[in-house]
């Protein structure tokens, strides 16, 4: 009796069912409605971009892992998230070769150079986005009209730009995003349009409602820290309300600030990147507030119309400090953490 080899491992011998790959996969599902809507609004261009960015990220991840003699890590789904997020932050009609480059940079520079999943101190998708923003400032600020009638039949000309060449001059339409319109022309887009995504903008940032839905799904499944979007939105809300109350002419209302630009997308899907955000609940509050304040500062006083990306990157840069400074009080110790255990 009992002739099989026993297996031994350390306690606990049971684990909660949720694995890292489950979390990552669910994030992808949560982004699906947003991506779907993006395809509905911007057509083939958006679809191609999503595919290109995801392919670039997954491929880079796979190849780099192979090159460094490790097991391929694409099965954890994190590269897919990066790819999809990157695509969602780019304007529709963005040349595919640039998208591909962004994906390579996001994974290679933003993730793999740091040691892969779990060690990237910045959100890889945002690193890719920031790289593209700096490298191709014109292309990335060229917006296309939503609901173009022929969007499912043909692709925007600039999408298929030959690699390494300049995209053709701006298409017929070059609308301003609501934020740019506000910044440069002081025009306020109605909240209804903003919420439903009836506006030009990046592929995935237009429909605030669907993004929020995805976020709620993740929160409900316990796969996202609800404090991050809540604190960001709260900070933006409070700060911009104060400004708005002080001078309603010069400063837009908090609703406009919430719904415009990439704030929703950033707050729900980018800032919540577990790896690059603080771990402690209090740290998370500080992190979210910092990002929120920075977003408002950059949007209102900065040179650029949008600052969510930069705000999150800066938040990422600060999060190691928050992990060190804002920590829970250990059971049975006084408030100060640094008291040495005797």
């Amino acid at each position, binding site marked *: 009796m009992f002739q099989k080899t026993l297996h031994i491992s350390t306690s606990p011998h049971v684990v909660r069912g949720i694995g890292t790959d489950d979390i990552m996969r669910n994030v992808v599902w949560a982004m699906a409605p947003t991506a779907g809507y993006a395809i509905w609004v911007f057509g083939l261009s958006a679809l191609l971009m999503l595919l290109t960015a995801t392919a670039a990220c997954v491929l880079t991840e796979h190849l780099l892992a192979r090159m*460094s003699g490790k097991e391929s890590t694409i099965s954890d789904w994190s590269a897919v998230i990066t790819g999809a997020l990157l695509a969602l932050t780019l304007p529709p009609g963005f040349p595919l070769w640039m998208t591909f480059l962004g994906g390579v940079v996001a994974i290679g520079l933003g993730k793999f*150079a740091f*040691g892969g999943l779990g060690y990237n101190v910045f959100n890889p998708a945002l690193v890719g986005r*920031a790289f593209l923003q700096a490298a191709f400032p014109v292309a990335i600020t060229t917006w296309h009209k939503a609901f173009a009638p022929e969007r499912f039949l043909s692709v925007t000309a600039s999408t298929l730009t030959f690699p390494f060449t300049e995209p053709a001059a701006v298409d017929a339409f070059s609308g301003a995003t609501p934020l740019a319109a506000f910044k440069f022309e002081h025009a306020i887009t109605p909240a209804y349009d903003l919420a439903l995504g009836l506006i030009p903008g990046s592929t995935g940032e237009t429909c605030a409602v669907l993004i929020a839905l995805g976020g709620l799904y993740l929160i409900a499944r316990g796969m996202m820290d609800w404090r991050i979007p809540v604190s960001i939105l709260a900070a933006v809300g409070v700060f911009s309300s104060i400004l708005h109350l002080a001078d309603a002419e010069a400063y837009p209302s908090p609703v406009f600030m919430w719904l415009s630009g990439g704030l929703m997308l950033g707050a729900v899907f980018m800032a919540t990147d577990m790896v690059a955000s603080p771990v402690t609940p209090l740290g998370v509050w500080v992190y979210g507030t910092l990002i929120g304040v920075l977003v408002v500062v950059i949007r209102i006083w*900065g*040179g650029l119309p949008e600052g969510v990306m930069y705000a999150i*990157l800066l938040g990422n*840069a600060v999060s*190691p400090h928050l992990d060190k400074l804002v920590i829970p009080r250990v059971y049975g110790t006084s408030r100060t953490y640094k008291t040495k255990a005797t």
Partner: protein
Amino acid sequence: MTHESLWAIFINASLINNFVLAYFLGICPFLGVSGKMATASKMGGAVTFVMLISSVCAYALHSLLVAIGAVYLQLISYIVVIASAVQLVEMFIKKVSPTLFRALGIFLPLITTNCAILGLALFQTNKGYGLLQSVVYALGAGAGFTLALILMAGLRERLEYAETPNVVKGTVLTLLIAGILSLAFMGFAGLGSN
């Protein structure tokens, strides 16, 4: 050019044109000392302090040189004053706090060859700042330098326990982070331009 507000000077020197991330000044200590939080903040403080001293010195020197009509001696007199000042500070610290001296190690003398300090003196002269403006400029530059250093130190401390590929470890990784930080700081561009 001398009508810039103090606030604008400070923001410009610390965030928009951060000495390390936009002007590449003080990269050597930035790469060297940013490994540990404690050292980084001390170094930041030391640099800011030396910046303040040299900013005031440079302002005085410039006025003097203009008075005697020997502006061509600007560079040499700046650097020699800064170098001596740093050496004095170094001796002082060595005497007063050997632990601090050991912590900052060889980097104290390297403050002398820290481009950020001389760069600050030259820039403030080029921009024609007055005394108060110079001091604020020095404060801003020092704050920016310290900020970059501390951010970097936090990130590097975290990455110390990461499975970073060996070919990337060390300077390469630090430069990559600096690049990304530099990208992130671009968000501050144009702050106050409208």
